[in-house]
């Protein structure tokens, strides 16, 4: 076998210093203003905003500091290394799949392999209890997040349509919409038009024109495998390098194993492991941004005599109300070539079924995406999730250029029984592995059935036939939900834990409901808002 591709990763990064060891730390022995656990969508924004405000800040990331040019490849199998593959025990009627399905490892986290679909939540998403009598209201409204949505969109130059027909924001976006669109997106739009369903080009965190030394998209189609030209935004290439330029220190390949607590019940920093050795980083404020499974897991694994049930867990809700999106894929065959591999995967969308319409027999709704595919992704999910393998799969794949695909992003209502807990099994650090339980509720199932039916109608209206459905899910939200009442939520409206005043939890785990939109923009807007609050607190 040929020599293995090996890449040297440094683990300590600051002020043009990069070291493969931790012996020349910038903030090693010091108490910093803030330490951030996890440098994904939320952690990247927080690191940047806090450093920009002049705070001393250390970001600690379990995975590597990727270099797109040497670590990414135009290859689906190779891209599996970008995912958080640590084993989670997965249970329940609809046991979730993890790894590349929803979580990232390394600087940038999930933004390294997300599709770049960049939505604001709708006003109704924050008021589901009031409007639909289910779930809970968020402690904030759309209006609280609107300025932060705008700020993030402007900062990374989101491209989008001139007129976005749904929700509270109708455009314009900072950069023009992507053009041209792919064959698959065109088929979707034709099918929608035939049925009187509105569709638009997708709002995307992917450049349609040059920005900040980065080129516009070349339609290579490997968004989920890591963008090589850097046309797609990630916190790996945007926020984190800028934060380092502003004075932040970034530690990578460092797994945070425990949040440290003093006798008075305040957090004092974190313990982390690098290369088998344990270290500590002291901080005035600890921010956990480790995503919807690892965040609750770290809080629960940090149980101590002051907090025997885990940190920030007086409500008993740490880990509860976890939500994915239902993400079923519907494929149909056409007489002409569609070529799912070409172009940005999601270039056309519809949110015509986003809001509650009781005549459908369920509350809340879904987004629909024309969604490209690559051979491994399409074939593996068909085999493992839809029972299509052997001769049947081979026949489909030999004609795969003739298939179009629509993907559902369906809202899932929160249930306390869908949760992250600690298992009996330990990982390599001796910490209990996360166990995740998930089952769809009745409303979720009705919503999925409606969405699948709609996908089939759109594909048929565009000339598709022989449709097949591959059940799937996407994204994770909840587990440390925000709220006004400390007995029914984990953090307040600024993502500060109710129980410990200098502990913040800021990532998708604070979501109260899932919405029916890809969550990344809302995660980043929440992070920017939380950063403002932490900075204001520091000045007081």
């Amino acid at each position, binding site marked *: 076998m040929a020599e293995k591709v090996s890449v040297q990763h440094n683990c300590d990064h600051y002020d043009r210093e990069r070291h493969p060891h931790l012996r020349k730390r910038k903030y090693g022995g010091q108490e910093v203003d803030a330490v951030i656990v996890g440098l994904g969508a939320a952690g990247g924004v927080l690191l940047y905003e806090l450093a920009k405000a002049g705070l001393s800040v250390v970001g600690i990331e379990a995975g590597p500091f990727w270099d797109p040019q040497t670590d990414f490849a135009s290859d689906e*199998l190779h891209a599996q290394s970008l995912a958080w593959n640590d084993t989670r025990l997965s249970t329940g009627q609809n046991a979730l799949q993890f790894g590349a399905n929803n979580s990232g490892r390394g600087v940038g986290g999930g933004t390294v392999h997300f599709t770049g679909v960049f939505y604001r939540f709708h006003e109704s998403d924050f008021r589901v209890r009031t409007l639909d009598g289910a779930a809970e209201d968020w402690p904030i409204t759309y209006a609280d997040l609107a300025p932060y949505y705008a700020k993030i969109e402007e900062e990374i130059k989101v491209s989008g349509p001139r007129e976005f027909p749904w929700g509270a924001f109708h455009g314009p976006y900072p950069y023009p919409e992507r053009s041209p669109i792919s064959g698959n997106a065109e088929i979707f739009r034709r099918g929608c038009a035939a049925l009187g369903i509105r569709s638009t080009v997708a709002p995307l965190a992917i450049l349609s024109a040059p920005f900040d030394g980065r080129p516009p998209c070349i339609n290579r189609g490997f968004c989920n495998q890591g963008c090589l030209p850097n046309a797609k935004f990630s916190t790996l290439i945007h926020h984190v390098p800028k934060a380092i330029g502003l004075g932040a220190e970034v530690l990578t390949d460092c797994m945070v194993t425990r949040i440290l607590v003093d006798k008075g019940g305040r957090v004092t920093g974190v313990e982390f492991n690098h290369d088998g050795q344990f270290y500590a980083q002291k901080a005035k404020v600890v921010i956990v941004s480790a995503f919807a499974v690892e965040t609750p897991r770290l809080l629960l694994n940090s149980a101590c005599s002051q907090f025997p049930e885990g940190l920030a867990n007086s409500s008993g809700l740490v880990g509860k109300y976890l939500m994915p999106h239902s993400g079923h894929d519907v494929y149909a065959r056409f007489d002409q070539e569609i070529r799912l591999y070409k172009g940005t995967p999601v270039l056309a969308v519809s949110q015509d079924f986003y809001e509650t319409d009781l005549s459908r027999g369920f509350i809340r709704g879904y987004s629909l995406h024309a969604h490209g595919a690559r051979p491994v992704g399409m074939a593996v999910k068909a085999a493992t999730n839809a029972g299509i393998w052997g001769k049947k799969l081979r026949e489909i794949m030999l004609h795969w250029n003739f298939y179009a695909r629509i993907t559902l992003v369906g809202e899932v209502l929160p249930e306390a029984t869908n949760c992250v807990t600690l298992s009996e099994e330990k990982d390599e650090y001796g910490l209990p592995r996360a166990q995740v339980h998930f089952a769809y509720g009745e409303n979720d199932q009705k919503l999925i059935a409606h969405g699948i039916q709609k996908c089939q109608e759109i594909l048929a209206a565009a000339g598709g036939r022989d449709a097949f459905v591959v059940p799937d899910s996407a994204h994770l939200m909840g587990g440390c939900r925000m709220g006004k009442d400390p007995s029914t939520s984990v953090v307040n409206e600024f993502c500060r834990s109710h129980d410990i005043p200098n502990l913040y939890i800021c990532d998708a785990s604070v979501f109260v409901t899932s919405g029916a939109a890809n969550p990344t923009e809302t995660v980043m807007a929440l992070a920017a808002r939380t950063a403002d609050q932490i900075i204001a607190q520091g000045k007081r």
Partner: protein
Amino acid sequence: MGLESLYPDYDVLALQDEWDANTRQIVKQRLGPFEFKLLSHWQQGMIKALARQLACEGRDEVLTWIAFHVETELGKPQGEAQRKPGIPPRKELILAGLDALDNWAKAKFFKGFLSLKEAQQLEFLQLLEVGGLPQEEGWDVERQKELFKKLAGLVITAHYSHPWVWSEIGYGGPAYPRGYVRVELGLVDPWEPKQAEWS
């Protein structure tokens, strides 16, 4: 049903000079040669026999790559993303599963799995998928289904990562730094796979 390629003249490997060096090296490793360290000769044979059915693939070179991919994954220290409680870790599950399939074959047909006819091997996999094989020595319905899922996931991932298969299905393959200029419905770049005239 058509099991022939619609793109018989297309060879994705002929485009490799247009790929970035990292991708080129990664993809070419799938052509071998392979040095097996973990799987025995018999275990390799079992994986290849199962992959022959799961992927509907007959070429020994591709099947050997699939077996090598399974070996590589089973040897990795990283996790397996998710596992059901009570199910053994992936490596243990799959290696024990190969023995179990052989034992089931011996119990039913009085010969080892590799000596069965292909139709019989296929039938075993169809039963395994739904947990329909004898429930003995811990192989309950759930464990059988998980074995099928983990095996199918590894095998199909490897199969559709082989450049010969990319050529066959008309996949453009790696596209950096070139990208695509013509993405609209019905348009193709000059180098992309095109259907043979007669098809």
